[in-house]
């Protein structure tokens, strides 16, 4: 596997567009991403999965260009080269229930063109240990829980320390402890390349990502650091005892008070903004 040190942007996307019938899933997206962990936030149907699938070379865009590590996935030979340096975790995937995790990861390694059996066995063991499945690697996949199966798939994506790791909702099905383990695992991977992950969980983004993109209706409506996203809500969050029609959004909290975001009325009781508030305001166009 190549270990070339890259000085250019690892991921460059220009006017990327994908439509499904009349629905535009990804609409003229431009991006330039370097190394580190990049979180993609957005509501269901915002186009996150479509964007990630295009970045993973699984889905061809209708329009626009992608450059991954300087290579163009439209060119078959370059697409193969990208895939040699890529790890991809799809949003949901069936696995082979009659395989053990070790057998499955070993099989994926074969298809990733690693033909040295000894290296493959060591690497499969390493990634399975990394995702916390050291004691389960000889058990049939059908006997593993959903969260464990998700970690098997993640282990397959981590094979060979890929320079680019594309993870579509990697924390789905994981319990809080496993999420913590995932975070440290990804933090280690980010030191070697680029990790792009989609999530609904702002806490994950806050804890893990150097950059965050917010997608709504196929477009990127915010790009910056998690701190900058939270700053969007500075001075625009207040609480009261009832609903407020002037707020962009209001919701009731566990203690029965209402929390509002938007342009606060005079005399409002301001409270500290969170990343959630910033995320909710990121699509408000202000």
């Amino acid at each position, binding site marked *: 596997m190549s270990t070339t040190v890259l000085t250019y942007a690892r991921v460059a996307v220009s006017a990327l567009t994908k439509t499904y019938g009349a629905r535009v899933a990804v609409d003229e997206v431009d991006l330039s991403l370097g190394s580190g962990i990049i979180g993609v936030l957005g509501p269901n149907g915002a186009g996150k999965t479509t964007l990630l699938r295009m970045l993973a070379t699984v889905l061809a865009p209708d329009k626009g260009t992608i450059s991954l590590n300087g290579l163009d996935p439209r060119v078959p030979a370059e697409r193969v080269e990208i895939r040699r340096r890529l790890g991809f975790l799809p949003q949901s995937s069936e696995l082979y229930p009659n395989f053990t995790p070790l057998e499955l990861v070993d099989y994926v390694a074969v298809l990733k063109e690693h033909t040295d059996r000894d290296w493959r066995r060591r690497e499969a063991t390493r990634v399975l240990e990394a995702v916390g499945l050291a004691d389960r690697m000889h058990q049939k996949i059908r006997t593993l829980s959903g969260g464990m199966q998700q970690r098997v798939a993640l282990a397959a994506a981590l094979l060979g320390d890929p320079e680019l790791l594309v993870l579509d909702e990697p924390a789905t099905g994981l319990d809080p402890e496993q999420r913590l383990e995932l975070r440290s695992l990804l933090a280690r991977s980010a030191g070697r390349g680029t990790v792009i992950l989609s999530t609904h969980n702002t806490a994950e983004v806050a804890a893990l990502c150097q950059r965050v993109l917010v997608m709504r209706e196929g477009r990127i409506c915010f790009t910056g650091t998690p701190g900058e996203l939270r700053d969007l809500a500075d001075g625009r969050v207040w609480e009261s005892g*009832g609903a407020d029609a002037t707020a962009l959004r209001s919701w*009731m909290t566990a203690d*029965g008070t*209402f929390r509002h975001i938007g342009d606060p009325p005079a005399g409002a009781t301001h409270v500290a903004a969170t990343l959630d508030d910033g995320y909710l305001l990121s699509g408000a166009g202000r």
Partner: protein
Amino acid sequence: MSAGAALAVEVPVQASAPRWRVVRALARQEARRHLRSPMLPLGLAGFVYLAWVTRTSDDWSGIEYGGMPGAGVTLFLGVSLLVASSFRRERAGLVEDAPTGETTRATGRLLGAGVLVLVVAAATAVQVMVMRAGGGVDLGDEPGRTLHAHHTLPEVLQPVCVALVAVALGALLGRRVQQRAATTIALFAFWYLTAGITWLFQAAPVRPWSIVMVHPVEVRVGPHSADPLTFPEEWLLSAPDAYEPFWGRLVVSPELATAHDMWLIGLACVLVAFALPRRTRGRLLVVGGMVAAVAVIAQYAVAP
């Protein structure tokens, strides 16, 4: 009023619904899904085409009469595939946590499939009415021939009973076979052979086990060289041909047709029983098995 109290008032309390109401709701949902599927119009189009081919064909006398039940082959396949996909939903992980038991869900799915049986019944009724409106159809070879043959009621009911088998088979394969491709291939092969190539099952020893039985039944009455004018004039006759080089008498037997319908109903019960959970299948299996066994024996007994 506090917000918490307001919320408590707004949330409706979900009363547990009686079992029959759940079954009815499921059946309606399944029926609607079946009626919206493109598989049904495709099956119907095949049925109309085959009915039209047998009506307009002059390949041999009696083709329209004998081809009546087999014309539904595409419809039967469509019914089986639709019911299989309905029962395949039973394999989804979501249903494991449902408060409604598997037997209740299966009952709902089967009742929902009733709409497909009604479609087959309606299509058959139209087909038979068209034949009757024309004053009956051609049957038999000279000198034992009529231009005004009508199907008896048990014969008319045969496609409906076959539709029951189609539903039961779809339920069984949908519930018990993991691979969709395997189910599709198996159903295709089954209906291709049993309803598409009906002559395969018309030899006397295997006839009672057939799915689609072609009426009338042919009974050998004389060699190729026999003089047909020596046969009673009320007999319908089948002239010698390449495959059956003898004179035959065509016998329409309502008793045989009735027993065959009973066999199909018993078979459908047995097949459905295997689609149900193990603990609830016993009674249906025994009753269905007995009906089928008695019907097969009866067919051998009344066969002309």
